[in-house]
């Protein structure tokens, strides 16, 4: 994208150098100061920074002790590490000089910090090239309802349809993740690996970046049976056994193996028993349905919902929740899988939050119960005290009467 605004470009390159060397010596950047100072003095129009002034300003301030060693002060040649640190410091100091680019495409950000489903805009989709379909001759007529028109011999997908379907898919991922379902992200094309793995990481889901092994769902025990499973609670933590449960289990195992109890070892957490078998996914996200026909067929056979990117040449009925979009552009694919991954992450966090609330509620309830019990106990106690007092009083009366009768008898 073309930068919208360029600020603070100096006309005197020599001064840049002087500032650069100064930065190097002082090991810090003045860029923020530059911007705030400039804005305060001249808020309108492009900023012209007086570097001379900056240099003076910097010189007037007390110099901070630098962690970057200097060859002159050390009296020996720098080591490789020190040289590298110097280089980094210099880079850091100088990369703020010159123009500031705003709103430009940083390819890695789709992976490291993808947009959330709330940030889906038509502009974003357009900029990512998500609307570009295939040559009109290759189309699948099932996609007619997604197609906006034809331009230069290719179909263009309607941006609002993409956004709507993407939002729906994100909600599905969010919901499945919130309920602790197993989500697989499948992207087997070249270049999709990192985005797929990152999305799986965010969701705490699973990924497939190379060939889908046929039978992973239909013949799961044979193919996946020897891999490890574990038991997790709502907060994705393993469930701990109490000391007593451990002891019980230990004794049982000891009895079965005819061993001494002290020799038997049991795990701290609840384990999935040997021979439990493999698990199936609850949701599959497929970035290239064209190459994963077998997988989609297996999912359909076991009623596992699927989300897929449907380009104009793909049959839209092969997945449960289609996202009509360009599956050939890495940028568009990374955007979509990034958004879905983020949705999964949000769902997971919502689950944690819900669990925390539930625990709080439980605690409150227990407290209420305890309070009620206490009040009840107190009441019975008071009643008892009253009763005792009455008893004592009646006893005393009885004794008085007896004494009186004795006296009268005498």
């Amino acid at each position, binding site marked *: 994208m073309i930068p919208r605004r360029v600020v603070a470009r100096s006309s005197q390159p020599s001064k840049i150098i002087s500032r650069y060397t100064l930065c190097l010596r002082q090991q810090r950047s003045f860029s923020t100061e530059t911007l705030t100072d400039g804005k305060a003095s001249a808020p309108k129009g492009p900023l012209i920074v007086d570097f001379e002034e900056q240099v003076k300003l910097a010189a007037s301030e007390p110099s901070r002790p630098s962690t970057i060693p200097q060859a002159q002060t050390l009296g020996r040649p720098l080591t490789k590490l020190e040289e*590298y640190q110097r280089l980094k410091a210099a880079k850091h100091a100088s990369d703020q000089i010159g123009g500031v680019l705003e709103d430009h495409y940083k390819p890695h950000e789709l992976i490291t910090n993808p947009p959330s489903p709330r940030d889906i805009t038509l502009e974003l989709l357009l900029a990512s090239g998500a609307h570009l379909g295939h040559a009109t001759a290759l189309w699948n007529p099932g996609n007619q309802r997604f197609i906006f028109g034809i331009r230069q011999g290719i179909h263009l997908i309607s941006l609002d349809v993409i956004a709507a379907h993407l939002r729906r898919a994100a909600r599905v991922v969010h919901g499945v993740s919130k309920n602790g379902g197993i989500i697989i992200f499948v992207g087997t094309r070249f270049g999709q690996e990192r985005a797929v793995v990152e999305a799986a990481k965010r969701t705490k889901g699973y990924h497939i970046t190379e060939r889908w092994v046929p039978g992973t769902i239909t013949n799961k025990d044979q193919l996946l049976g020897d891999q490890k499973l574990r038991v997790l609670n709502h907060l994705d933590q393993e469930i701990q056994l109490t000391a007593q449960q451990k002891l019980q289990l230990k004794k049982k195992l000891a009895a079965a193996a005819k061993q001494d109890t002290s020799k038997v070892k049991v795990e701290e957490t609840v384990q999935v028993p040997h021979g439990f078998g493999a698990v199936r996914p609850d949701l599959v996200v497929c970035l290239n349905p064209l190459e994963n026909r077998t997988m989609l067929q297996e999912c359909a056979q076991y009623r596992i919902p699927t989300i897929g990117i449907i380009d104009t040449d793909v049959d839209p009925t092969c997945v449960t929740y289609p996202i009509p979009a360009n599956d050939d552009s890495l940028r568009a694919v990374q955007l979509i899988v990034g958004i879905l991954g983020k949705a999964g992450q949000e769902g997971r966090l919502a689950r944690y939050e819900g669990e925390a609330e539930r625990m709080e509620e439980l605690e409150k309830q227990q407290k209420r119960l305890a309070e009620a019990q206490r009040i009840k106990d107190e009441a019975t106690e008071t009643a008892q005290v009253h009763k005792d007092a009455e008893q004592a009083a009646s006893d005393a009366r009885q004794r008085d009467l007896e004494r009186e009768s004795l006296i009268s008898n005498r």
Partner: protein
Amino acid sequence: MSSATRNPFSMTCCLRALLEDVSFTGRSLRMVATRPRILPSYQQTRAFTATPRRMQNEAAENEEEDDVDTGPRTITDKYKKLREEDGPEEEFELPPGSRIVPVSPSYFTGNSAFFDSWLTLKDLLYKYQTLPTLLPSEVPRTAWRTLADFRTMAGGTVQASKYKKVRAVLQRLNRIQPDLVPEDLKMVLENYKRPDFAAMQRRRPKIIDRFGRARGAGRRKTSNAEAYLVEGSGGCYVNGKPLFEMFPRVVDRESILWPLKVTNRVDRYNVWASSRGGGISGQAGAITLAVTKALLTHEPLLKPVLRRAGVITRDPRTVERKKHGKLKARDMPAWVAR
């Protein structure tokens, strides 16, 4: 057992079943061993049981013995005391929403052993790929784990082609400037290095034995030779025969004594050589190399001279293999019209 126990998918029931097994009455222990499986038939083979099948079988055997012996000698008595010590049994309740999930995020690839290590390494590479690197020629020599070794480490079967990819990433990580390698990366790389590499690198020093002999071995074409060099007056025996008897051609004899000749040491050493395999010239070449190596053990400073004389390098030329579709290695069959 409650009705919940009949649902094989209910986690709570499974764990309760586990603890029912733990309840120390003879009856329930017997039940574990002998009760008919209430799970659906397709689940029978992979039923959720607390103990491995082997242990269950043992328990069943015990059961039979018990039945044969006296009835009332139950386990109840045996555990009654222990039970009193333990206090009341605790009902095992899993928190609601507990679920069974795979450990590895690569579970559904069916090859989590490979993918987990591969992705860890790729992550490290993404993290540190901007660090300055050495030239490929400057990188310290490293031997990575062998495939079999890697399989044991990863705990699964990994194809050779996959491990090749892993090694390529390791090689790239290893190129990072050694002074700048971060600690975490260092630890991971150390993990992938062959443990006996240092020992492998150490070469056995060449020695002159107590009889004053230095041994050298050489090869050429399909011949092998070894030669013992002793300080002496210029005698030379090959396979127990004098040199001229073994090699009638002058060229071969010249070749064998060439390392001594160029260094002007023909009359200072005695050679005792043996050679096997190949033809006459091959054997001669092999002995030349063997003599050179033995001579270098005596006088290492002669190396540049010998290098210039061209006797240090092993001649790599051998007979080229025959290929199918050809008469010899490269000879094409004669072209005929039909």
